């Protein structure tokens, strides 16, 4: 009885899991196809693979430091930011996960991120802008979304997923330049076909494109998963929904800083084109649309609100 009620209330979304699995299957299939083609064509791309692996390893291993540096985040102690630490403490105790380091970035743009190669080396960072705009419950929703990214090891998953795309991108660039400057000996030219470098360029470009679209799709599914896990952890999907609206909606573009201080930044505020339904921009974006995220949270809210039997 207890487990029944529990699993009814906190359930995973089979549709989302299925779509994500299918995307990952396509990425895997692309890997296999590329490797098969490379073996069949006796192409030696060892150098590119090693280079891409090296770059991604650095990105994976130092993701926390790089992201903190990029956002200008600073690690804060519990004495400096008792409220932020208190929220993270409680969420970690609810989720039974080790507490990540907590950082604050002094930027008026409302944002938060979590990164790190595993839960033990994670850091969660909030900007002063988001802390000013959101109340405690909304901030808690955002932080539980970020902690879910840590728990799901999204840095590792996305690094692995983007490996092939990075290789293909590097090959494209190398081939383009070496072809441009006549670096390849054109053995295939005797048959009268296209030069080998053009074929390699086109194939790697195609692989890059497909892999780019697939990793973007995967990234959107991971965002939806983090929304779901985060909302279930706090039991308050509506708080996360309201935070999303504040952060990504129109309100986010209204500065909370004094006009005289913020004037220099006004040039950077812009209104993005609002896309209805399926569009090219939704294919390319790393985050699902606001409507999709709000719809999922509304569904979770209904599931949580089921009366006690």
């Amino acid at each position: 009885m207890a487990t029944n009620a529990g699993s009814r209330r906190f359930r995973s979304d089979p549709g989302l899991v299925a779509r994500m699995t299918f995307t990952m299957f396509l990425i895997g299939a692309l890997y296999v196809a590329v490797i098969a083609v490379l073996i069949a064509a006796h192409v030696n791309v060892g150098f590119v693979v090693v280079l891409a692996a090296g770059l991604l390893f650095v990105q994976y291993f130092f993701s926390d430091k790089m992201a903190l540096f990029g956002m200008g985040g600073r690690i804060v102690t519990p004495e400096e930011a008792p409220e932020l630490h208190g929220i993270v403490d409680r969420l970690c105790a609810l989720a039974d996960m080790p507490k990540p380091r907590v950082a604050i970035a002094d930027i008026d743009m409302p944002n938060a991120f979590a990164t790190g190669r595993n839960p033990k080396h994670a850091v969660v960072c909030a900007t002063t802008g988001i802390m000013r705009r959101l109340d405690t419950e909304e901030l808690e929703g955002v932080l539980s979304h970020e902690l879910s990214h840590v728990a799901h090891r999204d840095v590792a998953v996305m690094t692995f997923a983007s490996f092939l795309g990075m290789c293909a991108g590097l090959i494209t660039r190398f081939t383009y330049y070496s072809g441009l400057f006549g670096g390849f000996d054109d053995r295939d030219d005797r048959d009268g076909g296209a030069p080998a470098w053009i074929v390699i360029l086109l194939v790697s470009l195609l692989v890059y494109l497909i892999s780019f679209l697939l990793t973007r799709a995967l990234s959107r599914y991971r965002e939806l998963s983090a929304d779901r896990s985060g909302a279930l952890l706090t039991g308050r999907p509506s708080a996360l929904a309201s935070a999303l609206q504040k952060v990504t909606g129109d309100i986010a573009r209204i500065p909370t800083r004094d006009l005289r201080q913020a004037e220099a930044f006004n040039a950077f505020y812009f209104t993005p084109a609002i896309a209805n339904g399926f569009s090219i921009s939704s294919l390319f974006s790393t985050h699902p649309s606001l409507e999709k995220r709000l719809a999922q949270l509304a569904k979770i809210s209904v599931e949580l609100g089921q009366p006690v039997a």
Partner: protein
Amino acid sequence: MGLLDTILGRSKPVKPDLDALFALPSAAVTLEASLGLKPTGVGSVCVKPAEGGGFAGLRDQIDQLLAADNDKYAETKDSFGFSWITRSGSPDDLADLVTDLHAVNSSLADAGFGPALLCTLVVFSDGREPALGLVYLYKRGTWYPFAPTGPDKRDNQRELGVRAALGDDLKIEADLTRWFPVWGAPGL
């Protein structure tokens, strides 16, 4: 979390361990013998209230259950949005307190809100220094001491002393980073 859950990006809510609460009465005997700390009769359950009718209905049920019991119970909400269901009774009957706290816990868990349970706190005092709390983490099944000395200040030395005294009686949380403070908890 297993590999499959990582790959599929889903985390299962952690089930609470409720039974370890009953180890407290024997630990209290040790605590009184070694450090002179006695239970004050105050204990509380901290829970994150979920939104929606499900939790609200359950709260009504608990309120009725609690109201029937001579106003021993009170509910407070802290600044983080967590609810503390506090029971204050006779300092002498710790076993009774533990049974009541367990009743609150299990009614929440039975209704499917086990993942919303944060901790249980039982307050001890030696009459001289500020009160000290023993905090039970449901998700870990472990205990840790919390000795606040003022706003945002805690006495780590005293906490480590309690850990040393209780090592054999209770499963004390080994990871010190998880001894998170609960400032302003009821009874402290």
